[in-house]
């Protein structure tokens, strides 16, 4: 089952609200949604895989650090990702992220996200599923 994404109207910046059945799906959906703000993820091929590990004490901080790490790789290695496999073991998150080298024209560049903020950050179980809210600095 795929999660759902709502893009929030934050005056200065942009946020996402994500719902999913499982925590793994929540993280995966949030990551796809972030890259879909940057460019058209539908045009990205899962050509190369990178492994990402994050250790944080809570789910909200884990999600924020996960997204921040992906964003860092976008800016340094020029990787845009479209597909994720996420697993958890205690404090750690391990993700296999697949994507390819970013090309502004081919991937239909949309918006530069500078950072993943802590403001209004939420990850919580919600009615049998999971809910997350993340606000990005644009």
């Amino acid at each position, binding site marked *: 089952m795929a999660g759902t994404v709502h893009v929030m109207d934050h005056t200065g910046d942009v946020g996402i609200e994500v719902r999913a059945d499982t925590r793994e799906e929540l993280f995966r959906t949030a990551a796809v949604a972030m890259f879909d703000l940057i460019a058209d993820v539908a045009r990205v091929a899962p050509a190369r895989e990178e492994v990402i590990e994050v250790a944080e004490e809570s789910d909200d901080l884990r999600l924020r650090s996960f997204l921040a790490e992906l964003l860092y790789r976008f800016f340094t290695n020029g990787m845009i990702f479209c597909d994720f496999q996420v697993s958890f073991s205690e404090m750690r998150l391990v993700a296999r992220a697949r994507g390819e080298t970013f090309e502004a024209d081919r991937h239909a560049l949309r*918006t530069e996200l500078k950072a993943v903020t802590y403001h209004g950050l939420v990850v919580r179980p919600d009615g049998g599923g999971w809910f997350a809210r993340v606000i990005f600095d644009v």
Partner: protein
Amino acid sequence: METVALHRLSDCVVEIPKTGAMRVPGRIYATADIMESEGQDESLKQVMNVACLPGIVGFSLAMPDFHWGYGFPIGGVAAFDAEDGVVSPGGVGYDINCGVRLMRTNLTHGDVRGRLRDIVRQIFRDIPAGVGGGGSITTPSRREADDLLTRGAAWAVERGFGAEDDLQHIEEGGRLEGADPGAVPPRSYERGLKQIGSLGSGNHFLELQIVDEVYRPEIARRFGLERETLAVAIHSGSRGFGHQTCEEFLSVMLRASRAYGIDLPDRQLCCAPLSSPEAKRYLGAMFAAANFAFVNRQVMKGVAERALARATGRSLEDLGMRLIYDVCHNIAKFETHEVDGRPRRLCLHRKGATRALPPEHPLIPPGYRDLGQPVLVPGDMGRASFLLIGNARASKDTFASTCHGAGRRRSRSAMKRALRGRDLYREMEEKYNVLVMAHSRDGVAEEMPDAYKDVTAVVDVMERAGISDKVARLRPIACIKG
């Protein structure tokens, strides 16, 4: 959320009385009209949250262009006692030393009217813009980087970008004292060092502007401006270098806040006592990133100057491009201002606000000292931007701070939804007479004039409050975006 109690002090100033954990009252510079459209609970709540931080002095301030930010409101000003206060990376923002500079030229509108497209194309080619990407100079070595992070704009001038005289026309002389390249996280170098001399995206721009209204002709003339003068404005900051520095230090400060027992109403307000090792490291790194931004804007000035000379077939001397001033509007630094009638050393945070020193202040360059500090307030890309000067009350009432822009009215996603399928470049030319060149169409949609408040209303509040006076209005004729 409960309704915020407001107490109007004058037609331009509203106070939020101290309640709950607030250590000082909040003060918002806004007319009733601005409060009605912008005074949402979220942004007022953010003014109140900042008022809860340890060591805050006087008031938690918001300028008339304030709006909902993350942590601090955009348009927020907070002063902390230099001994007992804190520093908060969220009070500076990700784009450390984002700022604006304004250059005058010997050209007039008539000199460029027929060949505007060629001129803009030349600048668009020469100055990289848009998401990520490289800069307009060879990426410096790590040793060179340490030198530029310590010395700021002077480093760029030595390499032929702009003139020696520019330095005195930059806030803090284009160099913040106390930068510590060793405190800068390695990831900042990795992400941002290659981006020197690049504009970035979002609301950053390079504009060609025409002076179309002069309010104080004597002062405008001293700045080299008359009606019809062509000016160049650059709005940019520390790029990925600053963003990553803020990112890395937020987690340091979250731990520090806990260690020092600071209650945070919002995690993005995490901070550390100025006397702590965490604060000292952050300040060293943040000042280095601020110097990076000064270098970035100085390099772009040099590149734009050459591009403009080439495209108009003039020598640099004929072109006469001179820096009027360069201001920081996302920064924290030590300044001394009058509090309760006595000078006090403060760690001043301006998150979307501009320093506005009153006449005769020693930090104003000698050539302008009798006038007050020039303040640059960019508006939206269709209407106008303003050149102001700091007024006498600024240092008493607002820690010498004023507004920094028009302030956003509509969200980025709302703009994109509303403008889907429209030819925005043509609209900008036909409706506003502005030639726009950009790397991202979505970026243009987010930045269309409708997204912003009317900057005139914003600068008028600060003039009526006696904080800063209008000198000239500049209308864009061309705008380069990321």
